[in-house]
């Protein structure tokens, strides 16, 4: 019922002026940016320049998205998670009421087109950025939920990945609000639909698969087997297959774990790929945690950190010594 009537009132033509009932702000529609199950997003001109305006006849979904964006705004340093919220209001037209909210307009290209244009080498880099943002999101008690390339754009330069649709963002521990089958671990029979960090990390691995299969694929036998085969058939993915398979199995409990291991794969010298066995004890070259499990590589990380810590210590000591010497020197004069 709702869905039949949903699309029409929200379809407005360029030039339409949207006036808020409560706050009185006016927005002129420039063009449509996209639409989803819960409404349409437009590029619009507000008093202070271009904005993105999302409207829906389903006031509930608008309100709950606004709640998510508001809670992002409260947390320090989460500005990269989603666009920032500028206004929330209702637009009364033809005796019906359409709820809308206004956010920053993030100008960029969608994730898959960006990789197609700039080359596959960008894929892991953007994924690293995404994992960082997800770690931040998870730390603040949220799970993104409906993570898919359509909800990611790359802004810049410098290229930076941004999440644009918070419609599926769910409080940790609850049931995922919105999902898309291909990126949903429940669909593949690989886990529950509980909002936990590993749910998003599964989707990240599926996004990586998606870059090699732009048209996606259907579930045949399902499960880990089908996905593993899909990874093994594409040389650009095999390099990361260990990390991806661990993510698909839900073995990472934090985004940072996955990020650390992905980064290790990337920085690993190419010729060392196979030759250096795991039996070799940890040497100075910090890059080869090829076979190591997550705790090992973290230890590794701590080691390099410790070494750096000593360096800092000596530099500061020398500096203080010099200053003290100078102080004594001036006193003596």
């Amino acid at each position, binding site marked *: 019922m709702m869905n039949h009537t949903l699309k029409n009132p929200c379809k407005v033509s360029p030039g339409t002026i949207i006036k808020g009932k409560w706050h009185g702000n006016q927005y002129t529609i420039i063009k449509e940016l996209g639409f989803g199950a819960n409404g349409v997003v437009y590029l619009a001109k507000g008093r202070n320049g271009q904005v993105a305006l999302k409207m829906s006849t389903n006031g509930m979904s608008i309100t709950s998205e606004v*709640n998510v964006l508001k809670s992002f705004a409260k947390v320090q340093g989460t500005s990269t998670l989603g666009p920032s919220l500028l206004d929330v209001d209702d637009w009364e037209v033809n005796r019906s009421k359409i709820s809308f909210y206004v956010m920053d307009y993030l100008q960029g290209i969608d994730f898959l087109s960006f990789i197609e244009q700039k080359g596959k080498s960008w894929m892991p880099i953007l994924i690293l950025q995404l994992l960082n943002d997800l770690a931040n999101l998870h730390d603040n008690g949220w799970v993104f939920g409906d993570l898919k390339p359509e909800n990611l754009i790359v802004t810049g330069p410098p290229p930076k990945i941004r999440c644009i649709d918070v419609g599926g963002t769910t409080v940790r*521990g609850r049931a995922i609000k919105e999902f898309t089958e291909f990126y949903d671990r429940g669909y593949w029979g690989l886990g*529950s639909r*509980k909002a936990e960090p590993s749910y998003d990390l599964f989707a990240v691995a599926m996004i990586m698969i998606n870059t090699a299969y732009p048209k996606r694929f259907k579930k045949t036998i399902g499960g880990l087997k089908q996905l593993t085969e899909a990874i093994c058939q594409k040389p650009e993915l095999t390099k990361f297959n260990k990390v991806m398979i661990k993510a698909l199995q839900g073995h990472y409990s934090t985004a940072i774990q996955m990020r650390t291991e992905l980064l290790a794969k990337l920085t690993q010298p190419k010729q060392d790929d196979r030759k250096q066995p795991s039996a070799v004890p940890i040497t100075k070259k910090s890059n080869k945690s090829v076979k190591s499990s997550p705790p090992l590589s973290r230890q590794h990380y701590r080691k390099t950190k410790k070494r750096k810590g000593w360096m800092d210590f000596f530099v500061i000591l020398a500096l203080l010594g010099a200053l003290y010497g100078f102080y004594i020197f001036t006193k003596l004069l």
Partner: protein
Amino acid sequence: MYTGKLRQVLLITDGCSNQGEDPIAMAALAKEQGITVNVIGVMEHDVIDEKGMTEIEGIAASGGGISQIVYAEALSQTVQMVTRKAMNQTIQGVVNRELQQILGRSKTMEDLPPEKRGEVMEIVDELGETVDLEVLILVDTSASMKTKLPTVKEALLDLSLSLNARTGENLFSVYAFPGKRADVEKLLDWTPNLQSLTSIFSKLSTGGITPTGPALRAALSSFNQKPSLRSLLASDDESYFEESM
């Protein structure tokens, strides 16, 4: 009226009823008992005729629920979406009634300024996560549904996966119509898990008439029988939810 438990009927069909009482009237009867009726119309390559469409929309409208026509491939996504949406709609209805009591008549959530609406929405979200849910699934197994039944099974398993991720309790019951002997046949009694459907569905025979109305009536009576049995076990649970309101 609100017992801290949501009751829904989910009717999955592909066309028009052709025997017995008017299903739209039966849906209205369900609504009177506080049970929401949602309808999903499944198409394959063919389209559902005008008459079937009108009936599907009519049942949902008078049953206070949601209707959706989908292709068989999109069934899983739709079944869970419709159930959730209907659940939220019911909760929102309850919250609106509470608001009316506080703020006076004709005030609903939509009449609040956007800032206040957010706070109310948090309550709606919270309830959607924690409320107990009973879903009675009514599957049309008339001849034309035969090829769609494996997809229906997948969709129902997917539904239980989605709902069981919630904190609240879920109970499912599955009925097929027409049954072997009667208008409707019980496939699965109230259970929190739909996993056992797999074996039942493979044995299911299809064919015959489409007695949607009588099936709905029979299904409703199953809601009425059960609580007396279950209330012995879960009585303290219910009072907890009333407090949390």
